[in-house]
């Protein structure tokens, strides 16, 4: 799985079709993931805006530490 698909792919497919980061041969992408608090209930992950619930799902699926 490539770098771009790491987060945006997960978001675009609603997580279901996104390959978990564990299967990523370029696991380095995971280490550089940047989470920023935006405002109550919202964050950015590598710049992509996600809800708190989605961030939890990304963590659960291994996309974000």
């Amino acid at each position, binding site marked *: 799985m*490539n*770098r771009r698909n*790491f987060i945006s792919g997960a978001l*675009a497919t609603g997580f279901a079709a996104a390959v978990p980061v564990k299967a990523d041969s370029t696991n380095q*992408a995971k280490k550089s993931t940047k989470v920023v608090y935006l405002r109550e209930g919202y964050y*950015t992950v590598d710049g*992509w*805006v996600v809800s708190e619930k989605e961030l939890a799902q990304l963590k659960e699926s291994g996309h974000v530490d």
Partner: protein
Amino acid sequence: MLIDLAGKSELEFPQDKYDVAVAGSGPAGISLALRLAESGKKVALLEAGGLQFTPQSQAVYQTAEGTDPYFSATRLRFFGGTSNHWAGRCREPEPVDFEERPEAYEESGWPISFAEIKKYLAPAKAILDLESKEFKEKEGTQDLIDSFYPDLELLSPPTRFGVKYLDTLQSSELIDLYVNANVVDIPLKEDLASIDSFAVKTFDNVSGNIQAKNYVIALGAVENARLLLNCDRQIDGGLGNGGGMLGTCFMDHVNVRLGKFIPDKDVWKDGISSMAYYTGDDFIRSAGIGASNVTMGYTAKAESDGRGQAVKKFLVERACNWGLEDQLSNVFQFVCPEEGRLSTLTEQDPHRKNRIYLSDEKDELGLRRVSVDWSLSDFDKKTIKAVAEEFAIQAHRGGVARVKLPEFLFEEDVKLPFYGNGYLVNGHAHHMGATRMAESEKDGVVDPNCRVFGTNNLYVAGSSVFPRGGAHNPTMPLVQLALRLADHLIDDGSLPDQEGLSAEQELLQET
């Protein structure tokens, strides 16, 4: 009548003929001259350039060394003015732009009401070839994003004022159109308040003075301020500078590449390629920010253009797959497959640090060239960041798109122009302010009738009088203001009825 001053060995102008002398033949100058002539006023309309573009005339716009060439390259100095490369987008101001909002702005706002401009909409539309057309949403834009609403626009053909109105001006018995007539000074009479004449000079170095009852400069925002600053032979600091405001509060609309997005396929269907939104009034007020347009552009496939397309396509595909698109965007512009881009036209805070001032360099005519200080204020940064965040969240909530915000939004030190990682912050070629309208000279350069403070009969037309710029394209409102100024001059100084429409305005609206 058309009178070309080029090649003349001496300049002689008619005495006691003109009611109004207008310097500048762009949208403001021509709209004003035509309206005055419709009411029987005799007008001298002076264009500094010729009927066509010449490098010699354009060189007069060159700014001083060290100032971004953007401020000269975005203007045109020949008959028809900058309308000669106008894109044609028209957008009305909003009532919220005219509200007093001291919690948001340090400088004063419009000293006239929204209704004062609105009542000139119909004749302005006719001038811009938009009669019988209504403002409407960009096709495909869906009202799904809270805090924003689908933007409203009208697209002029666009009107090239020089092309459209040359025959009318040439055949007019009341308008004398002078070309190659550079106004280089505005001498005052002994009272130091009444204008004596426009001092005119040709590129052959021949000079003369043209006289009228009233005088209007309509040269564009940068040049209006520049000429008044240069007129400091009799008044220190130039004309209208009693409050030290001349040249200050210069504004543009900030063009920000605001991020990228993944479209929701249930919303982006049937070939929709763009949507455009505008900040809602409640959001503007509650966030304490300026107005902004946000445009979403989407293309379904990787695109590049220009030479070497095959190489670019290869690089684009790799860059998009490897997550290097931001870095490669610095080399050439492209869009990754299945991604869209957000861009904005954002209001800029009128603040005194942004200003036009004279350098020691002079042009061929002897006028000092200008330098321009132009930066983002804290207010500007606050507006850009608030608009980006709110739009990204509401687009997500509304199911329209997933937005990726650029890192520079969260950085403090963003300068103009800014180019970084494929992101861009620069101007929209919408120069405004620098001779701003205000109740008194401590806050501006012209009064609510566009008369230059400290003078009896000198006026300014154009977007330089805007005390705020909103997020609306400036051409239509500047034409509306020019028509309003014409009515003021037609009434020899008394304001038109502010409560209702004059008989002439009613007639124009009926037709």
